[in-house]
């Protein structure tokens, strides 16, 4: 059950983290 929990959260967490990272990367240009 713990493995299933980890796999599922990673499956949704990685794309979300990537999207947040790309957005933050662009947002930083506002302060440059």
């Amino acid at each position, binding site marked *: 059950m713990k493995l299933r*929990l980890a796999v*599922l959260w990673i*499956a*949704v967490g990685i*794309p*979300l983290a990537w*999207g*947040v990272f790309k957005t933050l990367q662009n947002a930083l240009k506002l302060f440059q």
Partner: protein
Amino acid sequence: MSSAFLDRQSTAAEPGFNRFLVPPAALAVHLSIGQVYAFSTFNLPLSKLIGLTQTAPGDWNLKELGWIFSIAIVFLGSSAAVFGRWVERVGPRKSMFAAALCFGGGFLVSAVGIHLHQLWIIYLGYGVLGGCGLGIGYISPVSTLIKWFPDRPGMATGMAIMGFGGGALIAAPLSVLLMAHFKTATSNGVLETFVTMGVIYFMFMMIGVISVRVPADGWKPAGWTAPAQPKKLVTTANVAVEAAWRTRQFWLLWVVLCMNVTAGIGVLGQASPMIQEMFPGRVLPLAAASFVGLISLFNMGGRFVWATMSDYIGRRDTYMVFFVLGIVLYATVPTTGHLGSIPLFVAAFCVILSMYGGGFATIPAYLRDMFGTYQVGAIHGRLLTAWSVAGVLGPVLVNYIRQYQIDNGVPKAQAYSITMYIMCGLLLIGFLCNYAMRAVNEKYHYRVPTTAERVPS
């Protein structure tokens, strides 16, 4: 896929099932359908399908293309309202599967439209079919999450609906990446991107279809008991969707959601030109795009933070904060323009957009508090028609009033002031409706028919 696998009975959780497996299932659906907020990424490439580098005769214009998003949002609201009861009846797995078919299929049908260069096929594909996928997908995990998290319904639904905000953050760079990858000398890659995204989103939504579970009847989290003294605006009774539709509370909540969304959505759509026009020469298009990204992050984060907070301070008080703070911030925006303070302007809009997202994420738990868990998904579906209305009202208010001001000689930097004060007025209406909220009259409560009532003598 076997029909039995999709049935509600097959979705029942096994003993010892960890309820924290359900939020990622909901997120898989919401992260996918949240792509709709990033649809504008395709508008420019779609307007150059023939000319490739620039719009050529026969290419679609941006005005025509803008309808794809609008149709999708209208069908989001209407399909959520129409299919709400069906979603409640068949359970989350079958409805998530239907949403995956519609949303993924919408991309594929649109790809045919791109190939044949027929815009109406895209309207039908992404707009109608995809829009139905959006509506069904949006409401499908809501009542399941509320049943799994009776102790923290705001946090649970906030987590899922946060995914809808986060979907755009993924889809925007993904679309750009795919179009660049598929670009050739004879194609700008948008057709191939549609096919790829249709397949990716269908598969990603299937993660939710496979992993979602419903709790057994009467299931409660270990060690948790419902409070003996329920809070003032938290019912222990249930109201069926057909009865809820007739209550004063439903329509008060409808206006509350509509006002909160109208205030936010108009700004979200105009954020880039607004910051450039309010600070002429100081904010360039690239920085404006960064501003849009930043407020999108707050839109997403606000969904989780505010909805979670609502579990502690109550749903009505959370909305009170949205409306009071919203009025103060909107009223401050023209001053930030006069002062020329970009940081204050950005900070104000970050908080405003966090409350826009928070409004969406808190509403399912508010509905559960008012109408119980019985048909909360279906009631939520009907309430989302407020979103469709706000989706038209918000941008119209911002765009038309701005244009009217400019046509009457007001400098562009000051053209948004009246709009901001109108937004304050809308939020005041929302505040009054929220203030008027009372518990639902007992005559609307759902009761299971007795044997005598079921079998007339």
